[in-house]
Each structure stands twice: as C-alpha cells, then as structure tokens.
C-alpha cells in the first residue's frame, strides 16, 4: 500500500508537512551560515542578514521549484519504470501473452457476468428518484399472494403513505392494429392512469396517460407508444398522434410517445404500447375477488414515509378487507383469517422484478464464480512474475548494488505487474463486451419475451476497474514485496546457483496450491450441476418430447367474456373450425400426428378448477385441467393405460367425456372403485353437466421435469367445452420440421386469419426452458471451472519448470552418484501431487460450502455429493500430473556433468 500512497502523494497531494518543514530548516541553516560569513567579512548583523537573503535569491520561487522537483522526479521515474516494464514484457512475449491473457479472461469473466447481473438486477429504472419507488407484494401466510382488483382499488383510495399507487398487467402478445394495417402482436402493458405520473415519466411527443383515461365506463381509449417502437415500427412519424389503433378489439387513439429515456417498469420487458387498464379489461374481471390479472403493483413513497410505515399501513388496510374463516384460495389449505394476510413493501428502484427474482441468485453465484476465476488468474500472474523475478535476481541484485533503493525496486516490479494488469483489463473489458450479449440471452424465463441490454454503464466500468486493480495488486505488489524483501546481496553472491531462499520457493507453492484449491471449488460445483442436470434429463417425463413442434397460437376471434359462455352458434362454429384445422394439419406431409389444446405441456401455466364426483358433491377438489383434440395424447406420446382415448365422435351434444391420469385415480377415487365410468363435475361458470371418465393415461410431468408428485389432472375434449386453443402440437417425421412448420402456418391462416402464431418452438426446447437457470449456472460454472483448472495448470507448470532450472545442480548431484532418472521424475511428480494434496485439503471444505449455496439448483444429488467431489479431486490430480510431466522430463534429461560444470 505504501507504494500507491507514495505515488498518490507525488502526483496530487501536497508534499508531507514533514518534508516542507525539513526544507525550511535547511533553508534557515543556509541563510544563517551565509550571514555568519558576511558578518565575518565585516558587515553589521542586519546588513549580513540582508546580504545572505540577496545571495540566496527569490525564496518563494525556490520553495516552488523544490516542490516541483519532488513531484516531477516521481512522475519521471514512474514513466521510466513504465517504459522499462513494457520493454521487459516485449522481450519475453510468451510470458507477456500468458500473463495478460489469463488476467484478461479473469477480468473479462467478472465484468461480463456483472454487466448482465447489472442489467437484470441492479440497474435502477431511468425515472426521477427511483429510490422512492416501492413494489407492493401481498402475502398469504408468508407466501407470495395476489392482489385482486377491487382490493387494489380500495387500498388506492384509502392509503396515505404513498403519493400514488398503480397496477400493471403486462401482455407480451397484445393484438393491436395500427391505422389500416393488419393486426399483429405488440408487447403491451395495461396500466393504471397514474402510471406515468407516479413513475415521473413525461411524453416525448403528445401526452402520457392520465387518470381520466383510466375510466372503465369510457368508450374512448387512449394509448401511448414507446419511443423505440415509434422510431422503428412507426417511422418516427409525428402524425401518429391522434391516429387510431385497435387494441383488444377496442378502438383507441394514440395520444403520445413516451420519453426516449424510459423503457419499462420491469427490467427485460420493454412494452411497445401502454393502454389504460380499466377500459380494456373485462368489467367482470375488474370486479372479481378470485381472479387476479396484475403483473404487479407499484407506488411512490410520500416525502416523509418509509417502507416500514407504508407496509404497516397497507397491511392494516389489507387485513381489514379480509373475512374471518374464509375458504382458502389455495387448494388444500385451512380457511384463512385476516391476520394471515400481509402486504410487503419492497424497494422498487429496479421496478417489478420477476426476472430478477428468478435469475438474481444464479447470476450472483456466477459473479462469485467469475470473481474466483479472477483471483486464480491474479495469483497465477503473481506466480509467473515471481518465477520470472527469481530468474532476474541477478539483475535486481546488480541494480541494488548500483544504488537503487528498496522502494525503487519495489516500484519497478509493481509497475511491471500493473502494466500486465492494465493490459489484461483493457483486453478483458473487450472480452466482456463481446460475451455479455450472449450471456444476456441465456437469461430467459419460460413463456415471456425478455431481452436485456447489457451495455456497460458506470457500474460496469467501476467493476472492471476494481477487477483490474485487484489483479494489479495481486500481480504487482505481491511479487514486488516478496522479491525485494530478499537479501539481494547474498543473491548477488550466488544467484542462479543455490536452491534459493526457502520462503520464496514456499510462497510460489502456496500460490499454486491456492489456485488449485479454488479450482477444486469451481470444478466440484460444475460437477454437482452437471450431475444434477443428468438426473433431470434421466427423468422419465411420461411423454415423448422428441420430434414435436409446438406452435403458440392465439385465436383472436371475438368471444365471450370472462365468466360467460359463448352462444351455441358460436360454439358450433368454433368447434367446426378446430375440427377442420386438426384434420388439415394431420394431412400435411411430414406430420405423423397433430393436435390442438387449450394449454398443452410445459407452457408455464397450470390451470386448476374445482371438481367433484357426482356421488360425493361435498368433496370439492382442485384439479388441473386441459382441453384437447382427439389425437393429443398420441401427438405428445402420452400412453393410455386403460379405457379409450378421445375420438371425433366426442363432440358437443354427445356424452361429455373425460380422461384422467393415474394420480387422479390414486388420490381421488376411493380404493376399490373403478375409475372408468365415474362422473365428474367441473365448476366453471354455470355449467354443471358432468363428464364421464372414459380413459386413464400414465402420469407425466407437466411443467417441470423436477416435479416430484404428479398432480391429479383431467382432460376433456376441446369440442365439448367452449375455450380457445392456444397450442398446436405436431409430431413430425425427422428432418421435416422446417417444412411442416411453414405448412402449419399457412394452414392456420387458411382456416382463419384470426388464428395468429405468437411463437414456434419444440417440445424439447420448451422442456429445457424449465431448467434455464440451472443450465445457465451449469454452463458458466463448467466454463469457468475449466478455465480455472487451465490457469492453475499453467501456474504449476511455470513454477515447476522454474524449479527445475533453479535446481539443475541439485538434480545433477543426485544423478551423478547414479540415482535413477526415474527417481528424478518421481521427485517432480511427488512435488506436484503434494501441492494438489494440500489444495484438496483446503479446497474440499470450500467445495462443500459452495455445494450448500447451490442447494436450490440441485435435483437428485445432495450438496455433499461424493462423486462430484471425488471426480473434482481426480481431475485436479490428473491435470497436476500432466502439468508436471514436461518439467519432470526435462529434469530427468539433466546431464550431471554439465549441471555441475555450470557452477
């Protein structure tokens, strides 16, 4: 630290007071002496003093010049050291390349991961005073719960701690038709009227939404487009203000373009269009106390309010709205009381944080991992510089003999390390810049179009700078103190010949061991995640995900609103359309089987309804449901265990039928009774006509391969209920995916232009998506683990190769009396394995600790998985042996005669 302080002193701060004092004393002494001389020459004391001052010249100018000398020489020497360091590095390009590259990888990894972490979790919304924003999180029995609109409205009316409170309902695929154009999907957000006011966002053009726009009785409807959408899709046309846009079949008018600096209320989700919530939401939904549709609720604290006060007030109000001993909205839970409810007021500077909630932890862990890689890289370079430094002991000793002070030597070496670190920093930042977008793409929660812009901001620069500084400290200061601390005079006497100072050799080994210990941590973590992922993939999903193309479809034909049923004519028309669609799709070449469904598998949504057996109407149970066409089970490869599947004959008017899974039979049918033939009622709207169970399918996973217990589920023919499809599944012949996808698109459009495709994917990809976080972590930790091991291997190789050079004589002496060459190889291997053994001793507890951190991401393996740990250790040992091999071979080739002669 002294080194940095002295640089700082020289470059900026005033010189130390003691230095100034010292010079004043020197100056006084000079003037006194001169005055004495003058007095001796015959002047009076007063005259003598005056003469002395005159002979001295302008004192304040001299003071200035002395200070300047202090400063300038420091900078000059620094430049000199810098030039010297650059020259030295250019003389050994291999060393420079390895050192700079390893630091660049370390710094790049840390910066790259951080820039994504920053974009996803840390960056505040670009609004005025974001730290006064809060997110309201309702809880029921300490678990996240939802806020129904009527309760939200009441809270909004009665609360006093927030200056404003708004709700958002994101609609990632909102059907909108601008002007005369055909309808398409835009990223939409339905927001309360005060959304822009509370956030403090103004309009770039026109105006933003206001409270008046958010009137449920209003026939007019205002819309605000984002600046990005305005410039890209609407050609930055000023005439858009006042132009029509049809949203959700309602005619709206564009009233403004939002400020260009504002993108979103939620990192990753940037709406193209904001529309007022109330006019565009079904009034029944607005009034519902059982259906929630908000993506989130945010507010801004009053000047004098704190989050704690707000939480207390809002919780009190919220509890007052609840009823004593009410049936729990969560299936299988006891009735609720007001005290079970609570509203948490969370800091909202980053906006709604659904993605951050999901990916914050894995990204933080990944950042920690990258930090470890950086540590390893720094230690590695320190080690390399150290080894190189020993090789230069002679040179250093000469310099010391020539009068270079200890401080100067330290500075020289530190500057060298700093130059390497700085070069690594610049290169690393470039690496981060290139890698971050790819990494950002991996941050994708299921079923939402999310995109992050990880472009560096001030925070990212700060982290890159901090990483570089850390690298500089490790790579520069450590070897500098180490080397200059040695007795250079004695080195002068025997540099390059003796076995070297014990402590120096020791430090090198310790550094290599530290690298291996940290590598072990990363490798075992990667191993744990890999094994966990293997387990996930080994799970029998109960269906066959290969060769299934999924089309995410929206039937945008106007239909009955929430809680109502469509007219008979409309139902018939829709059923006919879906029947036609399924038939046409099944006729396409390359299609083995095609089906339509309401939800489908792995779409990220569970929908449950209360059901009961007609013979036991008092036992109402919550059951997952889906509505499908006849070939659904065949298409996704679910096996029918008993009874029959659906057929074309199962349509409206025929007997209503259902298929259940084995879990349903196990849990819902009293033992001994036959499942097939039982009649079930689904309590939806007013329709209580029962469905008869006709078949049982094998249990399968529905939304996550890691589901432990299969939930009871039932399926009903799409033709017998009035819901719209959202998913088309196509089992295709290998190689025909592309052709089939294109064909399916045109079939959909041909059957009805209202059938709009949102997204095309495969069932396999959909299944993988469910473990996106784990995959991200696994990939990062394997990549970083590999990198760490490589760096550690380079470190070990470097230190052993150097040891061989230093100990040529010792080896020569061993060989001279006839020691086996093998024994020399064994000696080298033993040394490298000793290092690894020490590393494992230290690294194993660290790895176990890391495992506990990973617990939440593991499936089917414990945090203390012995196989991951053992294989980590094995990999390390193997790498150590490989790294030791070349130096060991060289050692065994030492010619005893030559070795002894070089004395």
């Amino acid at each position: 630290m002294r080194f940095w302080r002295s640089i700082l002193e020289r470059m900026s701060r005033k010189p130390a007071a003691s230095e100034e004092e010292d010079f004043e004393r020197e100056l006084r002494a000079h003037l006194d002496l001169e005055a004495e001389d003058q007095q001796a020459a015959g002047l009076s004391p007063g005259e003598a003093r005056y003469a002395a001052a005159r002979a001295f010249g302008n004192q304040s100018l001299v003071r200035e010049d002395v200070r300047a000398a202090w400063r300038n020489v420091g900078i000059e020497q620094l430049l000199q050291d810098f030039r010297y360091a650059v020259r030295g590095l250019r003389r050994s390009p291999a060393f420079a390349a390895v050192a700079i590259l390893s630091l660049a990888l370390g710094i790049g990894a840390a910066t790259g991961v951080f820039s994504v972490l920053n974009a996803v979790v840390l960056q505040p919304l670009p609004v005025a005073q974001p730290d006064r924003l809060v997110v309201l999180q309702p809880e029921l029995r300490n678990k996240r719960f939802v806020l129904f609109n009527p309760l939200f409205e009441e809270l909004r009316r009665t609360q006093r701690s927030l200056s404003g409170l708004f709700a958002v309902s994101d609609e990632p695929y909102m059907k909108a038709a601008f002007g005369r154009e055909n309808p398409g999907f835009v990223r939409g957000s339905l927001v309360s009227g005060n959304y822009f006011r509370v956030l403090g966002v103004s309009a770039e053009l026109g105006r933003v939404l206001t409270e008046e726009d958010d009137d449920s009785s209003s026939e007019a409807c205002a819309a605000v487009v984002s600046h990005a959408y305005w410039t890209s899709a609407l050609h930055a046309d000023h005439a858009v203000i006042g132009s029509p846009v049809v949203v959700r079949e309602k005619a709206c008018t564009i009233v403004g373009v939002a400020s260009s600096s504002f993108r979103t209320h939620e990192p990753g989700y940037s709406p193209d269009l904001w529309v007022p919530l109330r006019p565009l939401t079904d009034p029944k939904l607005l009034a519902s106390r059982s259906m929630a549709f908000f993506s989130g609720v945010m507010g801004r604290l009053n000047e004098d309010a704190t989050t704690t006060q707000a939480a207390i007030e809002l919780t009190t109000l919220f509890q007052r709205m609840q009823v004593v001993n009410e049936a729990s909205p969560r299936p299988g839970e006891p009735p609720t009381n007001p005290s079970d409810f609570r509203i948490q007021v969370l800091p909202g500077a980053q906006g709604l944080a659904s993605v951050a909630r999901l990916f914050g932890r894995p990204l933080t862990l990944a950042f920690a991992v990258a930090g470890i890689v950086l540590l390893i890289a720094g230690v590695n370079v320190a080690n390399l510089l150290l080894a190189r430094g020993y090789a230069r002991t002679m040179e250093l000793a000469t310099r010391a003999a020539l009068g270079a002070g200890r401080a100067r030597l330290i500075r020289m070496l530190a500057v060298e390390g700093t130059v390497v670190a700085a070069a690594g920093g610049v290169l690393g930042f470039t690496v981060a810049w290139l890698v971050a977008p790819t990494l950002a793409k991996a941050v994708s929660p299921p079923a939402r179009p999310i995109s992050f812009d990880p472009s560096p901001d001030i925070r990212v620069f700060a982290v890159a700078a901090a990483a570089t500084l850390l690298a500089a400290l490790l790579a520069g200061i450590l070897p500098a103190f180490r080397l200059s601390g040695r007795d250079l005079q004695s080195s002068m006497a025997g540099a390059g010949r003796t076995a070297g100072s014990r402590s120096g050799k020791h430090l090198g080994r310790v550094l290599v061991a530290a690298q291996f210990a940290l590598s072990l941590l990363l490798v075992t973590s990667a191993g744990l995640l890999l094994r966990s992922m293997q387990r996930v993939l080994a799970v029998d999903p109960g269906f066959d995900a290969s060769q299934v193309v999924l089309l995410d479809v929206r039937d945008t034909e106007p239909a009955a609103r929430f809680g109502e049923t469509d007219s008979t004519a409309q139902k018939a028309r829709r059923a006919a359309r879906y029947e036609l669609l399924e038939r046409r799709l099944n006729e396409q070449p390359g299609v083995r089987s095609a089906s339509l469904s309401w939800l489908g598998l792995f779409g990220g949504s569970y929908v449950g309804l209360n059901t009961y057996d007609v013979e036991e109407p008092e036992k109402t149970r919550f059951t997952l449901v889906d509505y499908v066409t006849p070939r659904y089970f065949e298409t996704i490869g679910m096996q029918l265990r008993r009874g029959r599947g659906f057929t074309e004959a199962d349509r409206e008017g025929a007997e209503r039928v259902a298929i259940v899974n084995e879990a349903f039979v196990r849990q819902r049918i009293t033992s001994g009774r036959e499942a097939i033939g039982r009649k079930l009622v689904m309590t939806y709207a007013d329709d209580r006509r029962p469905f008869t169970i006709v078949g049982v399918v094998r249990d399968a996973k529905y939304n996550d391969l890691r589901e432990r217990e299969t939930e009871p589920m039932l399926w009903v023919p799409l033709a017998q209920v009035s819901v719209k499809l959202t998913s088309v599944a196509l089992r295709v012949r290998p190689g025909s995916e592309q052709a089939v996808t294109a064909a399916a698109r045109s079939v959909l459009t041909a059957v009805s232009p209202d059938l709009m495709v949102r997204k095309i994917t495969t069932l396999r990809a959909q299944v993988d998506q469910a473990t996106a976080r784990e995959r991200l972590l696994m990939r990062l930790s394997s990549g970083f683990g590999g990198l760490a091991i490589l760096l550690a291997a380079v470190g070990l190789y470097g230190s052993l190769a150097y040891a061989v050079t230093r100990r040529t004589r010792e080896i020569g002496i061993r060989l001279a009396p006839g020691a086996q060459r093998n024994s020399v190889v064994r000696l080298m291997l033993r040394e490298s394995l000793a290092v690894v053994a020490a590393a494992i001793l230290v690294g194993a507890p660290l790895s176990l600790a890391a495992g506990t951190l990973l617990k939440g991401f593991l499936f089917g393996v414990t945090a203390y998985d012995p196989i991951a740990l053992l294989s980590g250790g094995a990999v390390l040992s193997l790498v150590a042996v490989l790294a030791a091999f070349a130096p060991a071979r060289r050692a065994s080739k030492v010619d005893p005669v030559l070795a002894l002669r070089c004395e």
Partner: protein
Amino acid sequence: MGTEPPDRVELLQGTLDMLILKTLLLGPAHGHEIAKHLQRTTENVLQVEHGSLYPALHRLERKEWVKSKWETPKDRNREFKYYRLTAAGKKQLLLEESRWKQLADAIARVMWPVKEG
C-alpha cells in the same frame, strides 16, 4: 554589487546537476558548502544564486543520485543537511561528464578548427 566581476555567465540547463555531483565527489557537503565551493572554484564567474542549488539537490535526491542526512559537524553544535553521492550518482556523473566532454569537443571543433597540414 560593485564587488562582483562584470561578465558573469548564465549556467546551461542541466549543467548545475553535473557540477553538484562533481562537488560531492570530493566528499559530503551541505548546501552552503556546495554554493561556496562553486563560487570559489569558478572565481565568481558562474552566476549561481544560492537558492537555485536547492531544487537541483532535491531533484538529485529523488533520482537517488545523492543521499542526505542531518548531521552535526565537529566544530559546531548545530545540525546541517549533508548530501553525499550514491553509487548511482557516481555512475551518472561519469555519464554526464563524458557527454559534456563530447559536447564541448564538438563545439570546440566548430569554433576553433584545427588547421590541417
């Protein structure tokens, strides 16, 4: 002022450093001694303001060509800051001396060319 010789020479940039180093080659000295020595040996031809020595001394010290220490001379009971030459300073003196010689020779060759033949 009347005691000063009429034609005094301004010192060339950097030359003072060399002169100081050369002076210290004779042994450790404090600033006043160096000033007096320069005055005496050049017989007051070189215009060296005493004050201008100090920035030079401190520069040389930072470059580690001289070292300094407060010491009390035998005949006095007051401490003075003595400067002494370091090994690097000696090397530097040799370097500057040879440079100066080269320069002086080159100038001399132009100014007073030796007639050939």
